[in-house]
């Protein structure tokens, strides 16, 4: 059995080295496709980080009515802090609001109006773990009816909008991934068909000498595996060092999944075994 496997493995290697041009084209195609795929994976991986960043910033601002005293504001702050959804509350006094106004609009509102019309406000920060926007909306509705509250501005709506765009991006990403996988299947399948057609005589002789379909297929599967392994490994190196260069050139920090190499190689092997088996099935009917 071991001798038989060794023979088939050597045959696979021989196929790989003999069919140079077709294998080269196939490897280049896998390299291109899997480089794009790998780049998508990296973007996907980093998109998750962006979402997490926004989620950590989930807040809503509570503007209190102008006649609210500081004690009433502190009391309301404590009330908020008792809620399990809320991680912290920042009290923003009238002076601090004026400063924020100045920072944002470049105008001193006290100088313009002669008094400070800005209300005291509370910046309520929510826990990002186990976040549920429905619960937040219920919470906001509850406090909107409070007599001290003038207005509640919920930042989560913007985050929802960003998230919905990210979902569109993920959808497009998945379509492109499937498209690239489909192209890879076609090209690996065609290379296997070409390889088998070139060795039609060899296959015929094997058959007349009692070879089973599995025996005939194995060297071609090994050949397709080698194409995928070389192509995806090169693609991984290109993606990894490509992003290292981009990071250092642009001064950003795009992270690469530690297991990206494994994902790319395993995916390429699955694609190649499926593609080669499919095309062989067609030929070895």
């Amino acid at each position, binding site marked *: 059995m071991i*001798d038989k496997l060794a023979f088939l493995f050597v045959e696979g290697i021989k196929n790989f080295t003999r069919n140079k041009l077709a294998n080269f084209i196939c490897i280049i195609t896998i390299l291109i496709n899997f480089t794009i795929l790998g780049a998508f994976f990296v973007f996907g991986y980093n998109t998750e980080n962006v979402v997490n960043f926004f989620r950590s910033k989930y807040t809503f601002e509570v503007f209190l009515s102008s006649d609210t005293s500081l004690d009433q504001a502190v009391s309301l702050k404590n009330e908020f802090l008792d809620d399990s959804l809320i991680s912290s509350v920042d009290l923003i006094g009238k002076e601090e609001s004026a400063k924020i106004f100045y920072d944002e609009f470049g105008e001193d509102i006290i100088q313009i109006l002669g008094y400070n019309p800005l209300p005291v406000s509370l910046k309520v920060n929510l826990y990002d773990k186990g976040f549920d926007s429905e619960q937040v909306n219920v919470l906001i509705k509850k406090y909107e009816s409070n007599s001290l509250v003038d207005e509640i501005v919920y930042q989560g709506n913007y985050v929802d909008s960003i998230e919905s765009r990210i979902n569109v991006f993920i959808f497009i990403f998945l379509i492109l991934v499937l498209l690239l996988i489909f192209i890879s299947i076609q090209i690996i399948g065609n290379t296997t068909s070409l390889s088998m057609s070139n060795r039609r005589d060899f296959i*015929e*002789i*094997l*058959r*007349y*000498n*009692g070879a089973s*379909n599995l*025996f005939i297929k194995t060297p071609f599967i090994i050949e397709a595996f080698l194409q995928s392994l070389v192509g995806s490994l090169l693609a991984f190196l290109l993606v990894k060092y490509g992003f290292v260069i981009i990071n250092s050139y642009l001064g950003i920090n795009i992270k690469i999944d530690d297991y990206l190499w494994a994902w790319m190689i395993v995916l390429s092997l699955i694609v190649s075994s499926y593609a080669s088996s499919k095309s062989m099935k067609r030929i070895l009917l």
Partner: protein
Amino acid sequence: MIDFKDITYNYSPQSGVYNIDLKIKKDEFCFLVGPTGSGKTTLLKMLYFDLFPHKGKVEILKYSSSNIKKSSIHKVRKKVGVVFQDYKLLKQRTVYENIALPLHINGVGRRKIKQLVNEALDLTELSHYSKKFPNELSGGEQQRVCIARAIVKNPDVILADEPTGNLDPTTGHRILKILEQINKEGTCVVMATHNYKLISDKAYRVIELNEGRVVSG
């Protein structure tokens, strides 16, 4: 061992084999003779299930054309050695590698392969050619490689389709001698030929075909 039961195979309305009933025993050496197009190759192809009869059935060893699955055909071929007129050798492999091929297919170990291939090389007087490639050999030598490849797996039946067709008379006699030797060791040999002169002095069974029908035998 081999049983053709009322088999018919049509290539076209005017060509094929028709209503053939034949039995060939174990250990038998028999010739299938007849002019080109008489159906010799068709009968042989049915024996290694390259063709299936349109009517009737062929039985060889314990396998029957009527119920054999495609996935089981290789099991028959492991027990049947085929010698082709056009040799069907792998041009990029040495004589040794060509002869060893059926043994690799059968999962024989490397040491045993070496021993069996050397025995086959001795029997076919090819020991000095083991490292040569087929295109470095004459037609007769290539045919002997083909025979060596057929016998190396110790088959129950050897089917030889015009093995002397491309060879001069002396080489043809040499090939026939090798096949006789194999038969003496207990292997059934069925040889198709249109060379009546080659077999005229042989006392083996001769099955004569003409226009797809058995004329005698």
